[in-house]
């Protein structure tokens, strides 16, 4: 429901520029937006809960300072450190806090810490993958790929026109399949650059992008070479 098979969006701001975006994000609808907001809220809540559990475990350890403010701060104090400690204390004393504290009390740290880290990583993973190819005649092409998690930033790579030797569609074994993929051969580099490396969209999309990219990059010469090279 949250993702679709990779879909292609083409944007042509000017005749000499084209951006091909392949994404698993479905077209935005109201239920989808609500669902995404709910999902985000759930993620935040789960991360906070993990932090609470870790703190509860810390409190039960002999190194923790026993003194915690037990008075409710007033006025400006709402935004001070004491207020945070007070809120935490209240949470720990609530039934939810008791439950979490009871759960993690007897879990050894060797298990708890990696588990918490893994959970946080899972919660930070993005649902959708978006990869794009920006083609600008006379300048070059730029491939970019959305990061796997919310914490990392997008990776992109620019290849200037004079370094591009060719763009073509190739096929190769991947896992138990043979897939089509678009590659850019860069001068002076041993490895080719795969466009849309994570999504590896289907042949129809790859071919459309290939035709569009060639037409945009080389103007009239687009598509006059053979389709694939072995």
């Amino acid at each position: 429901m949250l993702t679709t098979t990779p879909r292609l969006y083409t944007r042509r701001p000017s005749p000499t520029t084209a951006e091909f975006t392949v994404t698993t994000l479905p077209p935005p609808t109201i239920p989808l937006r609500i669902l995404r907001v709910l999902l985000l809220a759930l993620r935040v809540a789960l991360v906070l809960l993990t932090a609470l559990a870790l703190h509860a475990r810390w409190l039960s350890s002999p190194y923790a300072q026993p003194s915690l403010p037990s008075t409710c701060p007033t006025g400006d104090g709402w935004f001070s450190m004491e207020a945070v400690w007070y809120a935490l204390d209240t949470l720990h004393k609530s039934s939810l806090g008791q439950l979490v504290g009871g759960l993690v009390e007897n879990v050894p740290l060797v298990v708890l810490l990696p588990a918490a880290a893994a959970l946080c990583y899972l919660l930070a993973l993005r649902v959708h993958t978006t990869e794009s190819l920006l083609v600008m005649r006379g300048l070059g092409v730029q491939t970019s790929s959305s990061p796997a998690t919310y914490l990392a930033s997008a990776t992109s790579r620019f290849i200037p026109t004079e370094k591009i030797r060719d763009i073509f569609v190739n096929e190769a074994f991947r896992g138990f399949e043979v897939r089509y993929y678009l590659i850019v051969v860069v001068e002076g580099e041993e490895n080719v650059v795969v466009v849309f490396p994570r999504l590896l969209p289907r042949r129809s999309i790859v071919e459309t992008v290939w035709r569009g990219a060639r037409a945009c990059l080389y103007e009239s010469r687009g598509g006059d070479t053979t389709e694939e090279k072995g």
Partner: protein
Amino acid sequence: MARRRTYTVAMVSDYFFPQPGGVESHIYQLSSKLIDRGHKVIIITHAYDDRKGVRYLTNGVKVYHVPFFVIYRNTTFPTVFSFFPVFRNICIRERIEIVHGHGSLSSLCHEAILHARTMGLRTVFTDHSLFGFADAASILTNKLLKFILSDVDHSICVSHTCKENTVLRASLDPLMVSVIPNAIVAESFRPRNYRSSSRAGANGFQTDPPPARPLAPHEMITIVVISRLFYNKGTDLLTAAIPRILEEHPNTRFLIAGSGPNAIDLEQMIETNVLQDRVQMLGSIRHEEVRDVMTRGHIYLHPSLTEAFGTVIVEAASCGLYVVCTQVGGIPEVLPSHMTTFAKPEEDDVVAATGKAITAMRAGQVRTEKFHDQVKKMYSWSNVALRTERVYDGITGTISEEDFYGCDTGGYNGSRIRDFTLIDRLKRYYGCGIWAGKLFCLCVAIDYLFFLFLEWWFPRENIDTCPDWPRKPSADERTSSVDADAKRP
């Protein structure tokens, strides 16, 4: 004329280029001739060193080098089911109708045939080699062959001897085995000083090539041997026979090309008998050089102990050499008697036969200059492709069963069309043996379940199909077909 039906065929074998050999070139030549006849052919083999993935050869032959683990002499490890997902993917994306396996030692080929039957594709198997029945390895191979061939639609053997051998090994119905010989590219094996006879016949008459220059009484006769120096190629026989032949016939010398574990025996023989000036060993040569080596000689000696077909003696005859060979396997079927002298596979007889051949050459009784044109008429890959196509027609039902198998069905009146119903397939496998039958049934059942799982896990509609290679690569037609391809959505 009605348009012939064309097929998409997958040739599957462990043996393919870059590795040299007879099976390899057979697959390549057959594929390219089938493509000339309008079929679509792809080749599936395993990866060789850096040769992985999908490659194109000339004429649009597409080769899938499936990355796999190689165990022995370029044969892959028999991983019965692990090949299935990739194989299914390739078959669906290329829209394969017929799977054609080559080589009875190739496990890739056996697996492909098993999976193809499970997927409901027609299968053909070509056997290129002869096997014994006695030793443990042969028994195992034969059992495996029986397993695979009990459900194959049709088999092809390269010679009648090979057919007999295969029929016995796999307990097949002889009518379901066809004989289609190998062929050679006659243009690559022209004799020295060969002038095309069609050019000479300007007035419409074919003129015989000019008679070869008769040998001077003491002219050196060169005997050529080209073979991998393995035991089964008769290297021991050669080692024993050479000193005796050279002793009896003063103006002769040997030219030996090829390498292998038994090369050391030959070298020792040369040392012991001090024959360095009369026996020249060239080491291993490339296939393109074979013709140049052959045309240096007058007689070709082929001492093999077992041979299903023996393409090399056809090549030798095509180069205008008189052939002396052992009478084993399919060799006696290969060449007409005026081109060969046969010997029993034993030392005395090989020496005697070679002596006879040398005498005949000296007497000028052998018209070797005519051999090339005769061989050219007998063996051509186009003919092989034509006959293979007929087999494809027969198994897919394009020509009726009576047409294909003939009326004399040897008392068996049931249908020879292998249907794909699981229960019928299991019945065929069950007959393979008391224990083996049950084991094979288990294998087939698991394969079928695996197939259902794959259909669910990698749905058919998620697999992209490949565009066909544009055919008839003449200059203007090629561009137009690519244009048409480009317009397709």
